[in-house]
């Protein structure tokens, strides 16, 4: 059944993301200590651990329900800014997967994620937040699928590339949202933690898709 194999892929992806975020926990927290409050890696590690603990529960669900549970779990475990942003956006975008996961619904999911994220946090590109990784990634993915008719994996590879450039783009910026905004020009020269973690998640999604 399609629901099952989609969810299976999700579980694979979550496992990879779990490993990656724990590997990068200290690094992300370190980035956050430069321009924030030194907890971003810890927040995400706590969240993804809670998600993977629900592995069995997720396994029995169709993809949209499973993703929804991922979102609510993040909302109720991560806290801080990242919790409602990551979790709330996943939660809200999950409904795009009602009919299962394919190239089209993946694009819809991505766009819904981006929309909810910007609506919730009020950040625009250039504000030095996770939005700077998410926006170019989503637009690139969308164009690659819808206009260039690329296979999803190739489209995702392009999206990851775009996100990576988005992360680098945050370095010289002055933040206008989040704790980094309190620093004014002192934050210039530092990578945004939320954008960076977004890139890590996308990289793991790509690795799953490539397998």
């Amino acid at each position, binding site marked *: 059944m399609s629901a099952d194999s989609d969810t299976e892929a999700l579980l694979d992806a979550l496992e990879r993301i779990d490993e990656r975020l724990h590997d990068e926990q200290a690094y992300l927290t370190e980035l956050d200590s430069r321009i924030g409050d*030194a907890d971003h890696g810890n927040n995400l590690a706590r969240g993804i651990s809670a998600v993977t603990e629900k592995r069995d529960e997720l396994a029995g669900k169709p993809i949209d329900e499973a993703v929804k549970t991922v979102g609510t779990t993040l909302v109720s475990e991560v806290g801080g800014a990242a919790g409602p942003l990551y979790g709330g956006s996943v939660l809200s975008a999950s409904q795009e997967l009602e009919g299962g996961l394919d190239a089209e619904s993946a694009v819809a999911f991505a766009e819904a994620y981006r929309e909810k994220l910007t609506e919730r946090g009020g950040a625009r590109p250039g504000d030095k937040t996770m939005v700077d990784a998410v926006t170019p990634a989503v637009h690139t993915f969308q164009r690659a699928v819808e206009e260039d008719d690329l296979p999803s994996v190739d489209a995702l590879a392009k999206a990851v590339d775009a996100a990576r450039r988005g992360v680098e783009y945050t370095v010289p910026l002055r933040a206008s949202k989040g704790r980094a905004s309190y620093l004014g020009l002192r934050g210039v020269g530092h990578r945004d933690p939320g954008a960076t973690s977004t890139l890590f998640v996308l990289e793991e999604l790509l690795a799953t898709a490539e397998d």
Partner: protein
Amino acid sequence: MDKLINEPTAYVDEMLDGMVAAHDGLRRLDGTDVLVRADGPVEGKVAVVTGGGSGHEPTHAGYVGEGMLDGAAAGAVFTSPTADEFSALIDAADGGAGVLCVVKNYEGDVMNFDTGAEMAGMEGVEDVEQVVVNDDVAVEDSLYTSGRRGVCGTILVHKCAGAKAAAGADLDEVARVAEKVVDNVGTMGMALTSCVTPEKGEETFDLADDEMELGIGIHGEPGVERTETASADEVADTLLDHVLDDLDVAAGEEVVTIVNGMGGTPLSELYIVQRRVAERLDEAGVDVHDAWVGDYMTSLDMKGCSVTVCRVDDELKELLAAPAETPALTVGE
């Protein structure tokens, strides 16, 4: 690591248990990190609640009790609580007359509180109002920031809103009083050392022995400027000047001040700062109605202080003087 802890991951959980063990007036909601008044919810009274990351003790739950807060949600260290926790808090505190949520301005707190309030709304708590405190004058409120942070002035909001609610006012009135404090309070802080979070176990930022950070928040985040260390009087002058300037306090006006410790600075040093703050206000012809000195809103073991000034009128003076019985603040009849 120079900390009295067990597992870093158990920090918040064990601290909350310790608070409940020490204070009969507190009760922990099962399965949450929310503390509420043991004798609550108080039927017919507007509930005043708050929440935020841990590491600022006695903020937040230290102010839960008669005449002040009805409950507080505790997040992980420096991380705002999740929406579920806020929702559970609102549900438990509601005594049928509505709930005022006092939130320190930061997107994380506001977003989680908003979601929590929505969730509580779904469960039948209808009247939930939010007041956002943004007293940190070190941060510009401009397009380039997510607004000013909420810091130590929040305690005065808790006190006044709590007293108003205890006096039987309705939700609008309690919210009005809270906003009045927000409109009249300013704070600026500084750090001599970084704090050490239990999870990281080492200093969040490097600060040389002869350096200090001006305009810090309460999460171990860097401040707005790094300078050479200065004398207590110079520090007091800098902080006070910024705050007075921002509030535009004039001679003849009445204020309440707080010299707040960040957790690792001894009380004796806070009094040395207080001495100068009082001297300066006296010179400026500003009338100090009351002065608080102590650790009200901390940043773990950080050394440093903040100075808060709040312009008060008869209404606020009366609310500040009203009785309160909480672990961290007691005002007698």
